[in-house]
């Protein structure tokens, strides 16, 4: 069995226009790589949204990054104060990766 190394996977549901800011905050916390997965609609404390907005201001996406526990901690700490103003949710999960050095 290829030995798996445990890393952290961080998932954010955040507005599309805010992704560049999240990437910048991530860089400051040592997060170099990420993937943005596309979302169609959702309901949260701030009501419902779906991506058919002409302005695109309401469209959200799933920002995902795999990183070390240390980077995860500093990233989450940096994002925490913005949670309510950016209307984001954050989840942290353990994942096994093959090339430990890559993340």
């Amino acid at each position, binding site marked *: 069995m290829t030995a798996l190394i445990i890393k952290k996977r961080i998932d954010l549901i955040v507005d599309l226009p805010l992704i560049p800011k999240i990437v910048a905050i991530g860089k400051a916390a040592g997060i170099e790589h990420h993937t943005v997965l596309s979302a169609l609609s959702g309901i949260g404390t*701030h009501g419902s949204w779906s991506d*058919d907005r*002409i302005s695109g201001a309401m469209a959200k996406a799933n920002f995902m990054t795999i990183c070390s526990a240390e980077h995860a901690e500093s990233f989450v700490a940096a994002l925490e104060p*913005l949670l309510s103003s950016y209307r984001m949710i954050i989840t942290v999960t353990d994942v096994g990766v093959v090339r430990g050095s890559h993340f």
Partner: protein
Amino acid sequence: MILETLTSPIILFFALGLLAAFARSDLVIPEALAKGMSIYLMAAIGLKGGVSVAAAGFGPDLLIAALAGVLLSFAIPFLAYALLRSIGRLDGINAAAVAAHYGSVSLVTFVTADQLLTASGISAAGYMVAVLALMETPAIISGLLLARRGTKQSADSGASNMWHEVFLNGSVVLLTGSFLIGLIAGKDGFAPIAPMFEVGYKGVLCLFLLDMGLIAARRIMASKGLTFRLIALAIAMPIGNGLIALGLAAALGMAMPEMIVLAILAASASYIAVPAAMRLALPEADPGIYLSMSLGITFPFNVIFGISLFTFLARMIS
């Protein structure tokens, strides 16, 4: 004038969109199609403006209209901010964001007005497209100044990126770009591509307004933060802004058609360029509020009543 507007297919498709969405039909126009149609409309209106200015040349009246437009776009947010804070009882950040929307302009309101006015024999000068493009951005700057002053917020980390977003916003670039291309290519250069941008123009506008109706109605149904006071302001402010523009245009001696268009631009509120910029510059502002007001209430009001109202008033003045 109002009867003609209300039976023109453009408005009827808008009404169909509103009714379908209020009846909770699942009719949806794919987002890529909506984006595609807005790109087509911006290129077409830009080219048309550029070609007509290339033919008519740069006169002083273009400068006057442009100056009036930019002045209005800068000034209106300050007035709107005061109203939103006092009557609207909105917090500083949201008041600044909504004010920026009402200082800016709505392309589709301009395009719809252009169609309805031409249908009833009034054709405004081609350079009003340039005024449209010029009026998009100043209001965002005023809005951000109001927000900063309101909250003494430390310069936002993304500030540089935000200025860039404000000026190099997709719709401003496409509108100004195609205006310049129309200007350079001129009448004969435009001839080979004229069929595509003229034949399809009104038809695309119908399908686009069908989508606008769907989204405006769904925006109203999903709006949570809208108080009665804000709904009233979403109707009062367009009327106020339009009247101010009429007064300014009359004072500057602008011709009647251009006066109407300037009033409609001032009365219109943005929901493509400004929301994108605001979401980045003022993430704390609630898109639910500014979109419900500009897209859910002011846009339908302007399309159905505003255009006829300012045409009537402008006729009275001149």
